[in-house]
């Protein structure tokens, strides 16, 4: 039996495994924030070009996800949450993932340049390179600040969407960048609090593993304050109307309450971590609704 297996040529990876390499669930948030950045721009973009720009953002994010999985296949194999991915599960060769990731990245950039403009292409290139080299290769295994600085990679899509429509960058998309940048630490640290063992087993220096639960809880509370400021700021600065302003105030108030609840509590033995799970889920809803409100506000005004 083992002789037959050894002689059998390896089965080529299924197309679904290539799709899984692109982290489709993460991509939905990237595509949505990119689309909202584009729709919030003061200059309309032709639907065909708008679709192409969003496609390029999605492909660029997919490429970054594939390269991340290529580099981290050893870590993924150690964590329950990720061990069924195509590389650790042995359904794909590492080289195929590398070729796929690089090919997709180049394709997305070339298409963005020829169909849209140079500014959007440069920001897309920076976001892919930042995610792969700064976050994945440099920071993730070295410092508990990995997601603080690395979070910038996921904050670029609204800037790219805006740049695709206008050809430049302005205050509003920079504030949207800041909002996602400051949203990332509380979002991921809430997750890290209830999957701490997984990260510790894999040797990833997430904040709860390195500095302990108490520090992480305080940091979640602290980061939520500038995040709320960045989220509400477009309204008093006159960059958005009251629709966005009211939604942003309510959503940020709820976020601050949930974050404060985590910051002030101490987990018990066999704790189900319900407040942490609630904040993690709410933070995803928060980002979708805030960006949705931005577009609705633009249409209303």
């Amino acid at each position, binding site marked *: 039996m083992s002789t*037959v297996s050894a*002689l*059998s*040529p390896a*089965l*080529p990876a*299924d*197309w679904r495994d290539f799709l899984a390499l692109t982290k489709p669930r993460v991509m939905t948030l990237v595509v949505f924030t990119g689309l909202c950045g584009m729709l919030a721009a003061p200059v309309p973009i*032709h639907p*065909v*070009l708008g679709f*192409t720009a969003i*496609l390029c953002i999605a492909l660029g994010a997919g490429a970054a996800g594939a390269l991340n999985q290529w580099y981290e296949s050893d870590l993924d194999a150690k964590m329950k949450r990720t061990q069924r991915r195509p590389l650790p599960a042995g359904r794909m060769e590492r080289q195929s993932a590398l070729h796929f990731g690089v090919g997709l990245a180049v394709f997305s950039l070339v298409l963005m340049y*020829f*169909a849209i403009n140079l500014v959007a292409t440069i920001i897309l290139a920076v976001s892919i390179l930042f995610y792969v080299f700064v976050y994945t290769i440099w920071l993730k295994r070295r410092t508990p600040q990995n997601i603080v600085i690395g979070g910038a990679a996921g904050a670029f899509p609204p800037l790219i969407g805006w740049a695709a429509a206008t050809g430049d960058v302005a205050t509003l998309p920079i504030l949207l960048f800041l909002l996602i940048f400051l949203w990332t630490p509380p979002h991921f640290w809430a997750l890290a609090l209830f999957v701490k063992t997984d990260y510790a087993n894999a040797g990833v220096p997430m904040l709860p593993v390195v500095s302990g639960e108490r520090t992480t809880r305080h940091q979640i509370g602290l980061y939520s304050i500038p995040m709320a400021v960045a989220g509400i700021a477009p309204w008093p600065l006159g960059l958005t109307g009251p629709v966005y302003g009211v939604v942003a105030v309510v959503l940020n108030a709820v976020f601050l309450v949930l974050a404060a609840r985590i910051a002030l509590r101490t987990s018990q033995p066999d704790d189900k971590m319900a407040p942490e799970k609630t904040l993690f889920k709410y933070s995803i809803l928060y980002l979708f609704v805030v960006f949705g409100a931005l577009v609705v506000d633009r249409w209303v005004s």
Partner: protein
Amino acid sequence: MTEQNNISAETTDAIRARQRSRARIMAVLLGVFVILVFAISIVKIQIAHSG
């Protein structure tokens, strides 16, 4: 020997099926890409004429 040949045939069939499935997806994606490039070209020409 017979068993080995059977398994080998099954493996070959599985590889062929996987290759066919990937080729179909690739063909669809290339078709979509051609349509997209055509649409982008038309839009760019329109914008150039109106601008």
